[in-house]
């Protein structure tokens, strides 16, 4: 009893001491040697920037589990924490790259962030449609409410907030490429594949309904179509369809005359989707070919197109590869396999662009 009381008293004293002595005053954050912010001390750098409406990509809500919120801190951050080390390469540590969610604002900080992050906004939307594309892939449409419109570069992604729900006790953000027509600035579309046990995809598939309020932020990412006239080869699989579909809308909207070939890999014919839309792109775009590739067929299933792995089809079918630019979206395994084939075909890294699921 006496020991418990002493313990409780010590805990109380520590709490009070923390309030008085560990309270940090305001600190100044200098961004890119230009912009200066004065923020309350004691919070994480990620929280401080978010409060100032500067959104750094973060999929885990600042718990140090995604490693996305990297930025350079050139002054005031202290030593790299053990919680940051798994996400940072030796080179990144040498060049002062840190995880914004792990750095505490305890002194004035100098930081460097890409200027495009200043354009990132938080959006309130309403889910207006959910469409089954396959047994485990769905298309979600969100109407912008506040602000009423969104500007983005075709190929970019947004972060979708999964709120606290029955199977998740904390809010998390997950990144999804935008798949809709970028000419429509009043809504966005995303294509999501269900991940068993995934916090955000479980929310989207089992809980999110048309009419529900949805929070997003963005846009993010550097995946986009170049300004060149080089023939384009798109390679994707599964929900990797999303940014490629967006790029095709963009090519149609801008009257692009670039030759484009889209290799889309699926396990079976029933895993193919949006094939009618792809056919309409074939009719509307100047020189576009959609090449669905199926790895397996079941007894009774008819499929007359390319068979095998999508990378094998690229090797067989791609014409004049040396003049092409390649755009890839899919799993790390698919990207790695595609890179190998594209290198063999003579396409160098400078002409290969990808959105890897990492």
């Amino acid at each position: 009893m006496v020991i418990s009381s002493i313990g409780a008293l010590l805990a109380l004293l520590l709490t009070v001491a923390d309030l008085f002595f560990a309270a940090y005053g305001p600190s100044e954050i200098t961004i890119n040697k230009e912009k200066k912010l004065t923020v309350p001390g004691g919070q994480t750098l990620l929280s401080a920037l978010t409060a100032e409406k500067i959104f750094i990509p973060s999929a885990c809500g600042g718990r140090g589990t995604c490693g996305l919120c990297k930025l350079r801190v050139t002054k005031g951050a202290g030593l790299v924490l053990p919680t940051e080390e798994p996400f940072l390469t030796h080179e990144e540590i040498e060049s002062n790259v840190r995880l914004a969610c792990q750095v505490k604002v305890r002194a004035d900080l100098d930081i460097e962030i890409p200027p495009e992050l200043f354009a990132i906004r938080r959006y309130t939307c309403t889910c207006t449609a959910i469409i089954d594309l396959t047994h485990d892939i769905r298309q979600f449409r969100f109407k912008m409410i506040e602000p009423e419109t969104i500007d983005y570069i075709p190929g970019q992604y947004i972060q979708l907030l999964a709120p606290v729900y029955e199977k998740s006790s904390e809010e998390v953000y997950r990144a999804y490429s935008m798949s809709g027509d970028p000419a429509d600035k009043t809504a966005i579309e995303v294509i999501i594949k269900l991940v068993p046990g995934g916090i955000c995809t479980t929310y989207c598939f089992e809980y999110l309904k048309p009419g529900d309020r949805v929070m997003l932020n963005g846009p993010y990412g550097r995946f986009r179509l170049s300004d060149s006239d080089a023939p384009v080869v798109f390679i994707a699989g599964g929900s990797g369809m999303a940014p490629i579909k967006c790029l095709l809308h963009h090519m149609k909207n801008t009257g692009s005359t670039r030759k484009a070939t889209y290799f889309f890999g699926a396990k079976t014919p029933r895993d193919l989707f949006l094939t009618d839309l792809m056919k309409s792109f074939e009719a509307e775009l100047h020189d576009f070919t959609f090449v669905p590739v199926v790895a397996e067929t079941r007894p009774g299933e008819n499929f007359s197109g390319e068979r095998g792995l999508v990378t094998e089809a690229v090797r067989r079918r791609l014409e004049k590869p040396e003049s092409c630019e390649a755009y890839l979206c899919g799993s790390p395994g698919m990207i790695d396999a595609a890179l190998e084939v594209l290198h063999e075909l003579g396409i160098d890294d400078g002409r290969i662009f990808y959105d890897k699921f990492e």
Partner: protein
Amino acid sequence: MKKSPQLEKLEEVLRSSKLVAGGFMGTDSRSVTEIIDADAAAVAKLGYTPGRLAHRMKQITDAAVKGLGTTVKIDDRIQAAVIEAKGSIVCPWPHPGHFHKRVTAVKSLDSARTSRWSDLNIHLIEKHGFFEGKGSPYRIEPNDLIELIF
């Protein structure tokens, strides 16, 4: 037995949805130590070690990943497919380590027996002897796994 603060913190993380929807413990009311001890005994009884299981699981995943999501015949007894998702997941134990969200689904060629594991499952078994709690979506029953993959 009284738990250390570190063990209490670990169990809190394992039972929460911080890393995966529904957590790692499922509906299992046993402590993490009890789960690990019971599974270790089951594995040892069949003459295996968690390290040997993890090694075989890695072999299967490495072979199946070449199929880019399609089914690959591993040997005369099993086939497997690897499905990858966006992002990575960290180990709930307090040490560095994050893993691709990658799931290997294995099926016996001569029976209806199946199993599936994530890259994190392999790590949890290899380094921590943890097969997850009963009722967890990624719980692996050691006996069933051994019967399928060896």
